[in-house]
């Protein structure tokens, strides 16, 4: 493109004189006349460069200039846990093989909580008497406030007074149970101290805590 905008107007020069170095009116001269004369246009040179010879090359160019910053995402569809990039599935973990049978002694329950900011809930142990409180499946899904930024999309969970663990959007824990026995499942019974007058928190089972400034809706499925 030409450096000049009009035939009789030039904005270069930078001299301190009122007239500048151009032949026309400079910017900021302070009168009421328009600095740009109407009805004129500068020359415009267009150069073309061949950047793709075939559709495959065109896709590469598109990735370079249009979708380069698209993120990888973890999503669940087609009965798989997928790592996707745009429309491509780059890796997947097949979930279709997972099956939790309902056996003769099995039971299940689904609970939904809204956990207030800076507060905790004890998972209701439900009715898993046949497995002495153990479950072989726990799946949890959290729904966060729309205003919660990514750093605020988290919950803490404690199990049997162990270390504090973390959960973001979902969690799935599994094990195995036996009828009328403690086996290799997850114990949901809170081990409340039997001492008379004890008013502290339960120390067993699952405790979920919301450390964020927004309420969090938490849905938990437990099954034996």
């Amino acid at each position, binding site marked *: 493109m030409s450096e000049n905008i009009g035939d009789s107007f030039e904005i270069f020069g930078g001299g301190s004189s009122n007239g500048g170095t151009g032949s026309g009116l400079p910017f900021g001269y302070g009168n009421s006349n328009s600095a740009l004369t109407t009805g004129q246009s500068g020359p415009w040179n267009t150069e073309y460069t061949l950047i793709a010879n075939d559709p495959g090359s065109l896709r590469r160019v598109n990735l370079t200039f249009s979708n380069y910053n698209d*993120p*990888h*995402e*973890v*999503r*669940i*569809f*087609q*009965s798989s*846990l997928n*790592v996707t990039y745009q429309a491509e599935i*780059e*890796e997947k*973990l*097949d*979930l*279709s*093989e*997972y*099956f*939790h*049978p*309902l*056996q003769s002694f099995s039971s*299940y329950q*689904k609970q939904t909580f809204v956990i207030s900011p800076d507060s905790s809930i004890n998972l209701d142990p439900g009715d898993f008497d046949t497995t002495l409180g153990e479950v*072989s*499946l726990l*799946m949890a*899904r959290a729904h966060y406030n729309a205003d919660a930024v*990514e*750093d605020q*999309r*988290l919950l803490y969970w404690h*199990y049997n007074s*162990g*270390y504090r*663990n*973390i*959960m*973001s*959007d*979902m*969690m*799935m*824990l*599994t*094990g*195995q149970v*036996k009828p009328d026995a403690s*086996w*290799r*499942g*997850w114990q949901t019974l809170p081990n409340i101290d039997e001492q008379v007058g004890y008013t502290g928190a339960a120390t067993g089972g699952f405790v979920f805590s919301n450390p964020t400034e927004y309420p969090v809706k938490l*849905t938990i*499925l437990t*099954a034996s």
Partner: protein
Amino acid sequence: MATRPIICPPQPIDGFLFRKDKFVLEEDYNITNFFDFSDFQDEVISYSRSKVTLKSGKSVKISQTDIGDDNGFVKWVAVKVKYPAPKDPILYGSQTPIIPGVPTPTNGTPQVKKYIFWTYRGNTYNIGEMMILTGSKLGSTDSEKTGWNLTEDFLPYEDGGITFSNPHSDIDVKLEIIIAR
């Protein structure tokens, strides 16, 4: 020559399973949705996928220092455990050949034996056939680490890594793992 008897397929077992983008209960041919993941997506920066054979009585420590952030923390740990499957009754017929020195194939893994252990920060837990753990992106102003620590021992957080242990003496299991940050 005898004709192969016609055996009607048994009624499918009721249970929980993934169906497309949902987690459902199939019970008496009825399907009840429990979780809908169609709206679920989580942005990740890096990831890895691995397959591990875990021999009987052995342990393996999963460390993905290169996938994690500067402190080795990741947002996603998804593990599937595959146990020995039942033999195909058509292929193997009614009798299994006994070959000296070669373990005789078993008829699958009993349900109560489908478990292994995983240990994180000194705590040991159970895992059946699947585990999905998620964490959050680290806050830029929050010094607390809010993911899962998969560092090697020599890095600042030396209690990193998840150790999977196969407690069984007679079965090998296979792990399929996706880790993402």
